[in-house]
């Protein structure tokens, strides 16, 4: 569930930057971490999308075999 964990962390970072007492430095740091996490998440999702395309092909083959 790494994807979900990273999304949760990203959410935390976004909420942190909405806080009234956050400093600019902390906000920028959070942003940097957010970019890294987002990239990881998007990479993972793209991987899943690729698997989904493959599974769809297999599913279509099963339907054609009927």
């Amino acid at each position, binding site marked *: 569930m790494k994807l979900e964990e990273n999304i949760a962390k*990203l959410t935390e970072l976004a909420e942190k930057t909405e806080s009234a007492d*956050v400093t600019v430095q902390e906000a920028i740091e959070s942003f940097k971490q957010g970019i890294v996490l987002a990239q990881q*998440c998007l990479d993972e*999702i793209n991987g899943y999308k690729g698997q989904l395309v493959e599974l769809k092909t297999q599913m279509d083959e099963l*339907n054609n075999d009927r």
Partner: protein
Amino acid sequence: MIVSVSQLNNYIKGVMELDETLNLISVKGEVTSCKFSHGNLYLTLSDDDGQIDCFAFGDRTEAPEVGLNVIVTGRVRYLPRFGKISFLVNKIERADFGQNYLRFIQLREKLQKEGIFDLSRKKALPVMPRKIAVVTSRTGAVIRDITDVVRRRQPFSDILLYPVHVQGDSAEEEIVQGIKYFSENPVADVLIVARGGGSNEDLSVFNSESIVRAVAQCPLPTVSAIGHGVDFTLTDFAADVRAVTPTEAGELVTRDITVILSDIFRKVERLYNVASEVVKAEQYSLGRALYAMYSAAGALAEQRENRILNLLAVLSQNCGKLCDARSNRIELLLQRLSDNNPANILAKGYLSVTKKGDRVVSVKQLQKGDCVSVLLADGSADAVISRVEVDNETGRKHS
């Protein structure tokens, strides 16, 4: 002396025609068979030791009952073409019941009292018997008809024939032996006792007590097929089932395998169709389920992607806002700093005074004749205090 058949027959005919007794005579006998054919009456008269065929032209409306004793009046004639004697009947008179018929009735009542014909004794025929025993003549249409039917309907069944004479002196004993053979030897599943059509005399052996008892005591289910539909013998009553014809006997003990196979094929086809429909429905459901899963997974991935991008956007926005806010704050602070810059104050015409290095912030620090340094926006100068005066409102001293 050698003559031809025709010559002999014609001679016999001539002799008989000349005999006055044979030309008008009355004969008493028991009617053992009787039928109409083309409007003419054919009957057989019998007694214990003989029989004679009788013929009456078709001007009669009713036939005498079989079993009755009658007196027929007419003449004996010889038929050269057939080599047979026939009695041409002019008149028929009823006498009484014949001995054969009376014996038949008495035997029937006796066996009935013993319960030989009771329905409760009847056994059910087996379903699709593999071994079918038949007691009948080896030759003739009966065994052929039974065989044809069985082979057509149940080709896997065997026919076990016990050949017998079905009429004549030895018929009774042979038929009893045949039935007893199958009763005592467990080689068959069902027994058919059969003979083809014939006169009452021909069929009368099947009214004999020994055959009736043999059938009744037979442990196998028995089918009787004696004569034609209108003929009934005591054996028919003793058997478990009576068939109208030998063909029907074969049909009663068998099932039509083609019908059964057809039924089975129909049922298998129906099962196949039902199973196909079920499989199709399951395949359709599976296909839909798979597609639903695919759609859900795709939607979830989209949703997560959008969520991530939104969060990044939020982060970016928040950082932007924060930077803007901080930037504004800094500008304000800069403005304040600028406002509080001493150079800017001096540029406005204000000056800074020091006395012996100490900053002078009040006139009370000064006396007349003090030497002070004066700092202006563009330089400095030394000065001597010539007057000091305190401002009454603000407490400043004027000199």
